[in-house]
């Protein structure tokens, strides 16, 4: 599995004190630059998989592999390399930013804590670059999160995730908390992820693992999709194929349940 950037290899997980596993034999692998959607409803185990892929907990069985080697939570130097390569964006742009830190400070935080950059001028330059990449004005750096709308805060969170020039971003419901009219803007931003960023070479787009309950957002952003039900991946494949010709009844249920607008020409 060495060709994969990040992979869950037959991973099971049981929370301490629970009688049953939360995840059962999950195999999910991401190549560099690949965009994969993980779809499921509440309680399916989406957040638990993310937690394991982020190295915040260890699987009960199986392994999470980063560039082919099992992720070792005790190897601090190795984890630093992992953290600069794999970043995350959360659902709630209000809770994700420290209200007492300026936007510039929040965005440069991964660079400082991972020891990538310490020079003040270089940090400022990188912050300006990142703000440009997420379409925010340069003077945003000196302001505080409360001055920004939900959509703008999510841009800030994305800029912070992009700061160390990651190869993969794990995004947990990144647009669910946003109003419809800003949702598409953030989706467009995620579509071009890393492309407008000078630190990322053009031919190396940043990969994405998008966790969502919303199939249309996954369809908009991901090449591949895995459908999660009760801690098991019930279907996995190219997004276009899975949506057009779902094999598992649960995938069909999810698709059929999406409320649609009446068609314009009717």
């Amino acid at each position: 599995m060495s060709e994969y950037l990040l992979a869950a290899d037959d991973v099971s997980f049981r929370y301490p004190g629970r009688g049953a596993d939360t995840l059962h034999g999950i195999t999910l692998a991401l190549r560099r630059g690949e965009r994969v959607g993980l779809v499921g409803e509440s309680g399916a185990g989406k957040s638990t998989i993310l937690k394991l892929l982020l190295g915040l907990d260890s699987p009960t069985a199986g392994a999470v592999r980063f560039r082919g080697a099992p992720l070792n939570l005790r190897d601090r130097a190795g984890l630093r390399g992992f953290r600069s390569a794999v970043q995350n964006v959360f659902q709630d742009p209000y809770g994700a930013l420290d209200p007492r830190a300026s936007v510039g400070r929040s965005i440069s935080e991964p660079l400082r804590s991972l020891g990538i950059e310490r020079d003040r001028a270089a940090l400022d330059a990188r912050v300006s670059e990142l703000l440009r990449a997420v379409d925010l004005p340069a003077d945003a750096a000196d302001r505080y999160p409360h001055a920004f709308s939900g959509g703008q805060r999510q841009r800030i969170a994305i800029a912070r995730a992009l700061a160390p020039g990651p190869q993969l971003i794990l995004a947990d419901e990144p647009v669910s908390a946003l109003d419809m009219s800003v949702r598409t803007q953030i989706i467009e931003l995620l579509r071009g992820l890393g492309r407008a960023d000078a630190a990322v070479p053009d031919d190396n787009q940043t990969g994405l693992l998008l966790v969502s309950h919303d199939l249309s957002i996954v369809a908009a952003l991901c090449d591949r999709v895995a459908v999660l039900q009760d801690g098991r991946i019930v279907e996995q494949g190219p997004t276009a194929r899975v949506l057009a010709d779902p094999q598992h009844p649960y995938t069909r249920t999810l698709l059929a349940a999406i409320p649609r607008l009446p068609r314009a020409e009717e």
Partner: protein
Amino acid sequence: MSTLTVNGLSVRTEEERALVSDVSFTLPAGERLGIIGESGSGKSLTALSVLGLLPTGLRATGSIRLGDTELVGASPRTLNGVRGSGIAAVFQEPLTALDPLMRIGKQLAWPLSHHRGLRGDALKRGIIEALAAVALPDPEKIARSYIHEVSGGQRQRVAIALALACNPDILIADEPTTALDISVQAEILELLDTAVRERGMSLLLISHDLAVVSRMTEHLLVLRGGETIEQGATRTLLTTPAADYTRLLVDTARSLEAYLPEVTAPAPRTENHS
């Protein structure tokens, strides 16, 4: 059955900041109106004004009439009479309407005895029937349960049962499915649709989700920043919106939908009140 008539409704803070400005609409008996808007649009404050449940510090002016009864500035006694038998509500978070310390059956007992005069065995039967009517499995067991013992979708069904128990003329549903899983959402919408149709109630459905509102209502009111952007027949607004903002909402919803494989979408409700 009575018509709900809202005329020039404004909601202001103590500092006289307008959160809802001059909103007017009519919901004739047995019809369905959707209010669509994003955060800060004033859609929920409009619903709370109708219920006389605005948070402390907010004041409604203008007129809200249910039949011949004026609700703006009405006495708590009048409002209490209206809430329940006239108007009942279901909210996004069912836990706001439900008591965590009281068995579900007991919570249903009050409206059933108060509004329908049920007592004794008739009341017990009424409780079970009310739970069965919202398609809850094993209603006897649910009646004995506390709210934390049932799932999110079941909680919303209990909240709907509680609202319906009063036999209201008008059901106000404020983002009733937003907190629910997509497969549960479909079931709850189906339940609301059936309940409203079978009981001949009016429905005021508030949501940020255009697809949900258009599935359920024949008229739409679009709010933004407390102001009316547009109102009219749901189908007209979706196909030929007059306002740029409505067009933005429709285009956004359609652009996301375009990523999904085509399905035969159910036709929107039309104006047919037979």
